[in-house]
């Protein structure tokens, strides 16, 4: 079993939860967010390295002492990690319980993936985009019915302590008031950990091809 990865980022401190973490970003995502930070996950997967769970374990294991000493571990993101639950399950069998496994996901996946991952991963960071279906669809190209159902399901399986919800302020798509509404709605579900942040549009110069 191998999976393509668009990147492996070491020594992330307090970004993916507590402790020192390594982010392993899978290729492939069901969404098409307009401001996706990792748009390479839509590219041809053949240009990215593929690893088996054993190979990835060996690769990230160099930071084993940091993981254990700080309560950190590996964060699976991407892309959409819940499309690779079997891989993560096999990885967990290799690393045991010493490493914390965190999932960074949109939750826009079939319900059985969420049910399967709940007993494997420790913490969840969910980028909810916006709870308003129209805003969600405009920004991602998909509807969010699965997301809210899966969030309810995950709360039942995991409790609320291990779930952090990210709510971005996305220029031209939602407003601060929309974000407040999203937070309010999700708080009613029992969630208490939120990460509110803002995308800042930066003007870029057009890249003109050089004459060869």
């Amino acid at each position, binding site marked *: 079993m191998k999976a393509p990865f668009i990147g*492996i980022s070491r020594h992330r401190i307090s*970004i993916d939860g507590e402790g020192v973490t390594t982010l392993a970003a899978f290729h492939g995502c069901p969404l098409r967010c307009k*401001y996706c930070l990792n748009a390479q996950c839509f590219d041809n997967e053949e240009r990215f390295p593929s690893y088996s769970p054993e190979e990835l374990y060996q690769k990230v294991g160099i930071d084993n*002492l940091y993981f254990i000493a700080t309560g950190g571990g590996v964060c699976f993101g991407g892309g959409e990690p819940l499309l690779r639950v079997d891989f993560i399950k096999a990885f967990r069998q290799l690393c045991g319980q010493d490493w914390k496994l965190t999932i960074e996901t949109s939750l826009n996946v079939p319900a059985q993936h969420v049910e399967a991952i709940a007993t494997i991963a420790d913490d969840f960071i969910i980028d909810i985009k916006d709870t308003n279906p129209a805003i969600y669809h405009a920004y991602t190209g998909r509807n969010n019915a699965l997301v809210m159902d899966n969030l309810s399901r995950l709360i039942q399986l995991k409790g609320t302590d291990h779930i952090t919800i990210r709510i971005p302020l996305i220029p031209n798509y939602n407003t601060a008031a929309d974000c407040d509404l999203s937070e309010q709605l999700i708080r009613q579900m029992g969630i208490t950990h939120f990460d*509110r*942040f803002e995308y800042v549009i930066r*003007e870029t110069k057009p890249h003109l091809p050089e004459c060869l």
Partner: protein
Amino acid sequence: MKPGKSTCKYLKEIRRKIAEENGIALYMPECTHQGPCAGTCPQCEHEVMQLETELARRSTLGKAATIAGIAVTLATPAAAQVKDCDNSHKVNAQTATAAPNINLQDTIRVQGLVPRRTIVPDTIFALRGKIIDEKTEEEIPFVNVTIRDKEGKILTGTQSDLSGEFTFKTLPQGATQIVFKFVGYTPTEVPLLDNEENHLPITIKMKQSSSNLIIDEIIETRMFGILEPAILDDFGQTFEKDGVKVKVIY
């Protein structure tokens, strides 16, 4: 303090704390590197490997290690790890969230070599190390590693793994040298010696041989944003890319 340097400092404190809590005498020279830092380097990685090796050795002797949670209370460096993106936005510095496509091989150069291990003849002990490219400092997997006697006769051997690391649980009597061979690199011979610190891992830097293919030119294409390198040999002739694995493009 720049993010890379602050990360390096934090990780160094973790290593120091692990060493102190477990009574390990770890040589940790102060970093004098000036300029950009990725937060780690071969010297930092070497210190981690030393700790891992020593803790594993103690574990085989039945000694428990103190690691879990000992660095939880250390003050973390600033969380402002903003990454510039290729797209038309950047994340607010207060809450950086993106998954940067960081090259795992981005490291700083370290001056000097790690200490050589020494043996006294008739002593049997474990040997462990890592093999990297002298120029790029990338790990080199599948290197043929052989232990030989003074006549050059092969006594035992192994191969480096995907991380460029190799291990020998024991060494045979009469072992006096270790030889590293891999296609595209000049064979490297290292004498085996012995001292009290015989469990310290070694780092081997292999030099690319002069007959290697050279990536001499990059031709940029605009199809799907993928760069297509042109690979030339020493005489400027173009080679077909099939079957040639391009590991790094600078």
